């Protein structure tokens, strides 16, 4: 007997008393509807359980072979005073191109790649970054926006009537809702490769919480302003406007905000994220980022432009509420009448 929950046994007794199934198969069928799996003795040969499905792992990318010599492009100097917070888009002249920011070490030219996996060894199951029992609550809290669907806001109503303001609609207290759906942006940068399986897991959880039809998932690398899309990277579009969700839709980024570095990883300046968050804010869409690194490593000041949440075992719904309040407020007061 497996999967027993406290209410299942009384339910089963009640059902068996009323229905009186004639044989063991009938009793097992009733038990199944009560949430209890009963293993019946096999009539002949024992049936082998099916082997667990193999875990699909993306094939490793071919090693990057660096060109010889110093590959760093000339870097233009930053203006005095640094980058302004007021810039709407980051002009390319102010963003150094760090595409190949380091010279390849000598050993990289001689090192042999690992042999291709032959499938004989199954990869161990990866523990998700969020505690499984809490994931649903964490995600629901981080994607909920406020809507006027709550109880009657008597105070506001009375105040308005006292001032002689005619009400066009009944004022209600803000209520968190997932009805606006979500746009999920998944950072496919090489720096996020260690979290690739975690990203797939959390995307599935988001779809389960908010609804498959209400969750749009797009890929990007480094910063969404550089290109977003689905499918292969060649088909991504640099113009984010085409993908911009309707006003009020929360945007959830699974990224490291450029914290992770490495050979071949294009560094992301915090100003690029600030500009992207500003762009979404003007469009009425709040931006939330799940970061798989400790808060000490988060880019300073970015927390004022977007909501940053730790993507870790210590994160709970309370952590999210502490950071976001009861729910995400829509930029520009889109959730207020």
């Amino acid at each position, binding site marked *: 007997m497996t999967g027993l*929950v406290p*209410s*299942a046994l009384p*339910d089963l007794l*009640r*059902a068996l*008393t*009323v*229905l009186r199934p004639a044989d063991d198969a009938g009793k097992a*069928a*009733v038990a199944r*509807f*009560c*949430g209890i799996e009963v293993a019946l003795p096999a009539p002949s040969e024992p049936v082998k359980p099916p082997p667990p499905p193999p875990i699909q792992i993306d094939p490793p990318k071919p090693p990057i072979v660096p060109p010889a010599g110093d590959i760093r492009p000339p870097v233009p100097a930053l203006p005095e005073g640094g980058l302004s917070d007021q810039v709407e888009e980051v002009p390319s002249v102010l963003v150094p191109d760090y595409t190949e920011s380091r010279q390849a070490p000598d050993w990289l030219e001689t090192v042999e790649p690992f042999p291709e996996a032959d499938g004989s060894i199954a990869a161990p199951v990866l523990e998700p970054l969020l505690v499984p029992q809490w994931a*649903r609550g964490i995600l*629901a809290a981080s994607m909920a926006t406020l809507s006027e*669907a709550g109880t*009657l806001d008597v105070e506001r*109503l009375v105040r308005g*009537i006292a001032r002689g303001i005619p*009400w066009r609609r*009944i004022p209600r207290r803000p*209520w*968190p*809702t*997932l*009805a606006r759906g979500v746009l999920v942006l998944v950072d496919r940068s090489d720096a996020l490769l260690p979290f690739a399986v975690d990203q797939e897991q959390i995307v599935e959880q988001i779809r*389960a*919480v*908010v*609804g*498959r*039809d209400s969750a749009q998932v797009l890929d990007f690398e480094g910063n969404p302003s550089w290109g977003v899309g689905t499918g292969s990277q060649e088909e991504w579009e640099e113009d984010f406007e085409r993908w911009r969700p309707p006003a009020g839709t929360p945007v959830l980024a699974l990224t490291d905000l450029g914290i992770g570095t490495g050979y071949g990883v294009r560094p992301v300046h915090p100003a690029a994220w600030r500009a992207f968050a500003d762009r979404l804010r003007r469009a009425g869409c709040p931006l939330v980022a799940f970061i798989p690194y400790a808060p000490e490593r988060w880019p300073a000041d970015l927390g004022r432009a977007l909501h940053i949440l730790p993507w870790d075992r210590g994160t709970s719904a309370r952590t999210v509420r502490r950071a976001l309040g009861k729910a995400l407020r829509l930029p520009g007061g889109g959730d207020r009448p």
Partner: protein
Amino acid sequence: MTEPLFDPEKNTPAKPAPAGPGDRRDGGVYVYDDQIILAVRVALATGRPLLVRGPSGCGKSSLARHAARVLRWRYYEKVVTSRTQAQDLLWEVDHLRRLQDAQAGSLRGGYQKYIRPGVFWWAFDNRGAAEQAERSRPDDRAGGALDPNLGDDHERAVVLVDEIDKADPDVPNNLLVPVGSLEFQVEETGEPVKTTRARAPLVVITTNDERELPAAFLRRCVELKLEVPRGDRLLKIAQEHFPEAKEKDLKDVADRIEKAVGTESAEPPSPAELLDTIRAVRDLKDQGLEPAWEDLLRITVWKHGRTAKTPAKTPE
């Protein structure tokens, strides 16, 4: 307490008038299998809500209405939307009318005049709900039935909560207490609404699995997963809906659809799609026209969103 034995074969209800176009929601026809009957019996015996899963068009909602017809019970339904809150299924308050009355100086008494019973109130206590509905009836709508019952006249009821996965995640859990304890209290008036185990409704809740339901909610439900019927069962459904049609004509349409979609299809044709196609063929033939199968199946079956593992070839 003796629960009635749910037996659709012995208690077959009279068939209502033939249905028009669109989904048939009158519960006039339903084709059961042993699993479905057992699931309803277990839900009745345990007093737990029956959670029906399955793809759209496979008969989740119509099961509730037909079960009510088999049991000869009252029937109430509420289709959930993304804006639905758990309280909407218990009672609703007409705040706008109350405000209008306040501004017109005709506000008397408390909330009684502005509270409308929800489906669970009607199912738990239809007399109390009728009294409340009468109290809250607008002056300009005198006369007419107040009870939204779509079934028979009986002390017990079947309640359909349709597509609960459309609601916000808190809604299923917020329904657990009123459905489990068979009572709730109207906040604005303090009025208790309750029923007894002997008069408990059969609650049928459907989900398209678009959104995951909370574990606490699932633990308190009897779960039935409906598969999309295929082969003989699909044909039997068509025969029940179109008793006047010849079996070979129905089989011809069913075969064409199955071939068009392909046996490897990730989404086999649903009964609703088969019935739509049969209806279209019948109407075309009534007008003396022969269906252009390729075009017809593209409209009724090959709609946006269907995917196939292998490209299907439309039969000649």
